[in-house]
């Protein structure tokens, strides 16, 4: 059912059951938010989205207040702006103020709003560092509750996206804090280390430990490349964050068609194999292939016992020519079906297509398979 409301003096149409925030968004009217996230159910607890409703005694949180016929709303009145600024100041009074060293500076939603509303840290001072920095031993998730604004997005992301219920709220009043389980470590509280809470945290309270300090959020220093995960068959997409030619991390991409912001521990945090020093970076051949002579078929692992089996780094031409010669010889001497080809479920479609073409056209065999069975 369509109803008529007024926002900032302008008559607009809204749908019954919509919140003020939804109605405003549909008409491109901006209302600032902090605890609200479109993927999570609204809780109305940060008070950033407050608006003035004519006839109302208090300011209303736009994310949870439904519209009604004839509702007259002011989103940016002096009273509203003053209220929002005070809300931000109260947050700052309880927030470590070292943006320069913070890992999420530039992507911090609190920082954005503090700037927009020019909210100074209040003269009555901050409460300092109340909690241990990096307080949880989880290897992936950096916890600094001094930066927490109690928005509860982590609690909701864990309950509503991951459905694991690791995070909760404990204590009351000024002591109120976010805890894992009943005040245990994340892993003890059965955390799966998916990092959904990190992705949804609007501040630096939860960030990534394995690349802390590398500048993941410094947009001017990094490039983001959207790609598809290389682990399981779900096909999640995310952004690889690249700095100076190196992958420094994985960031959720909200437009990912299969998974949205969600990822698993391997997808989000299992990327560092890419730059592992074990990576093969030069073609290698066994010495006997360069010097001639027979391949000794025993004791393959002991290169000391059999120096002919020592690996020698070569250029591409040498390695490719040896490979082609050996495959060609086996084909011509023993027949096409003496060659087996194992293609790869980890590689691209285009690459698998070429392996299939190589087996059938070049070698002339159907002996091609991959680990689908394994």
């Amino acid at each position, binding site marked *: 059912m369509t109803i008529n409301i007024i926002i900032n003096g302008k008559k607009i149409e809204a749908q019954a059951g919509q919140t003020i925030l939804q109605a405003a968004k549909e008409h491109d009217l901006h209302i600032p938010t902090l605890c609200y996230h479109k993927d999570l159910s609204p809780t109305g607890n940060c008070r950033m989205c407050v608006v003035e409703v004519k006839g109302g005694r208090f300011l209303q949180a736009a994310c949870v207040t439904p519209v009604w016929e004839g509702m007259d709303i002011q989103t940016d009145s002096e009273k509203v702006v003053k209220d929002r600024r005070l809300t931000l100041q109260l947050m700052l009074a309880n927030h470590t103020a070292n943006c320069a060293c913070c890992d999420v500076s530039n992507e911090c939603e609190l920082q954005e709003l503090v700037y927009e509303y020019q909210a100074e840290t209040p003269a009555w001072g901050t409460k300092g560092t109340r909690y241990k920095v990096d307080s949880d031993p989880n*290897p992936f998730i950096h916890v600094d509750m001094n930066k927490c604004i109690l928005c509860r997005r982590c609690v909701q992301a864990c309950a509503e996206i991951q459905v694991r219920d690791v995070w909760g709220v404990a204590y009351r009043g000024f002591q109120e804090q976010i805890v894992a389980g009943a005040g245990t470590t994340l892993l003890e509280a059965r955390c799966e280390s998916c990092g959904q809470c990190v992705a949804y945290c609007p501040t630096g309270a939860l960030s990534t430990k394995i690349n802390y300090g590398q500048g993941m959020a410094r947009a001017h220093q990094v490039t983001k490349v959207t790609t598809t995960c*290389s682990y399981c068959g779900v096909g999640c997409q995310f952004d690889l964050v690249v700095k100076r030619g190196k992958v420094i991390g994985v960031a959720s991409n909200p437009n990912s068609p299969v998974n949205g912001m969600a990822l698993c521990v391997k997808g989000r945090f299992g990327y560092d194999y890419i730059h592992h020093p*074990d990576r093969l970076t030069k073609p290698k051949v066994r010495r006997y292939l360069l010097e001639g002579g027979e391949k000794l078929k025993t004791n393959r692992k002991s290169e000391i016992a059999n120096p002919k089996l020592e690996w020698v780094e070569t250029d591409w031409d040498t390695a490719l020519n040896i490979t082609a010669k050996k495959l060609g010889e086996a084909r011509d001497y023993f027949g096409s079906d003496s060659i087996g080809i194992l293609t790869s479920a980890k590689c*691209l479609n285009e690459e698998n297509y070429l392996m299939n073409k190589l087996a059938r*056209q070049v070698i002339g065999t159907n002996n091609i398979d991959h680990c689908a069975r394994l």
Partner: protein
Amino acid sequence: MAGLAASFGSGAMSNSMDDVAKNAKAFFIIGSNTTEQHPVFGTMLRRAVRFRGAKLVVADPRKIDITEFATLHLRQKPGTDIALINGLMYIILEKDWADKQFIEERTEGLEEFKATVMQYPPTLVSEITGVPVSQLYEAAEIIARNKPTAVIWAMGITQHISGVRNVMDLANLQMLLGNMGVPGGGVNPLRGQNNVQGACDMGGLPNVYPSYQPVTSEEARKKFDDAWGLTSSTKVGLTATEIIPGILEDKIHALYILGEDPVMSDPDTHHIRKCLEAIDFLVLQEIFPSETAAYADVLLPGVSFAEKTGTFTNTERRVQMVHKAIEPLGDSRPDWWITAEVAKRVLIGTNNRVPREAPFSGWEYRDTNEIMSEINAVTPSYGGITHQRLEKGERLQWPCPSADHPGTPVLHTKQFTRGKGKFAPIDHVPPAEEPTDDYPMVLSTGRVLYHWHGGQMTRRAKGLMEVYGEALVELSPNDAEKLGVNGKGIVRVTSRRGSIEAQAWVTDRVPPGMVYANFHFPEASANELTLAALDPVSKIPEYKVAAVKVELVG
């Protein structure tokens, strides 16, 4: 896949993940540890259960994570899936819950199938599977009375000597309930690797060309002979599980392996090592010196997914772009480039096999986009899937035969690929290796959340190793007590093929009499123990059942 091909004419996940998560009234998960192996899909299922009240029946010998969300958990004995499924169908027929209209219009072979199912009354099924009769009735009711039910499985169903028949029996179940071709239903085998679906689609199989055009078909052979100027015979090739043992049988003399690690991932490691030691020539294209690299003669450095552009196809047949983020490390090269170079050099090396002049006889590719154009031309189901469309953000699930085709999120909506769906009478067969006095326990194998397959990638990820840094053997508290494992302890697990020693994880995830081990760590890989008993059709090894004995080491 062979099982679904027999029942429906083609094998792949019939529905999409978002579709079943949104529309299924109930889920039947059998042989899929969804939250650990397909974690993000696992969370979609958890959400469906918690937030819209979908019912969930899990059938698994282990108390896997998703069972916490189950309406009902059936703990069948390993290797008794057919008896279980037949038992459920017996009850469905007995209670008259079958979808008669669907059966009449869309299927054939009901009577013969029915005669077989009627051999599986609940009391007998309970005896074979160890599942109480009352639970069988409860499960059948949930699955049948909530419509549609989506059936979801993975390697827990296929990695048995009866794997193909297990799958055909699940196809029977979904036809009986009329859950095929509808949103929220279907048969949903989850593919393990990121691009195992694509590797199959692209002809990385011994019996089919790209898009499952059979190599035995003269028509298909001619098509590719015309496209490539030369192709192979109509004789079906060897599977991976036959190629490597074929070395000792003097059938295979050279191997070209791209990004696979048979020493870790194939059954009976000891035998695999012996085979690889005897190969005349092995070229391995890899990113790491894997366990298999020790047996290679040439190592060609390929690149990781971060260093190349192209496409992967996910479990729901959806093709998605992979984008190059960084330059290849050192002197490594994209794998497509390497393969094309090998091909070119074999072709110019000798005159024994020269392709005729043909549209796609050559191997000059500037990028994967050019390769995709060739794929479009010879692969009907990928005919309209181009990099350009994917870059525009189109959701393309094959079949997508032409440039204006929107793709196919749900298969079999009007009719099955083979016309009518075929009910197949399937009988229970016991596993190849059952416990004996010498080997009294059952070993099942698989992966864990924090690691991936042979572990080449995840063992090189620091954080993952911090959480799960060594092989653990899951052991029930009951057996732990018998063995004297008090909390922690190293156990030796021995089968007829080999032995491993690893830390025991005492947990009620496994029932008494069963142990579960993974194959992520070379120092204690479960595949030292597994046997190469293969499904006669799919040639998939029975990874999920082996007889072992377990001893306390210290």
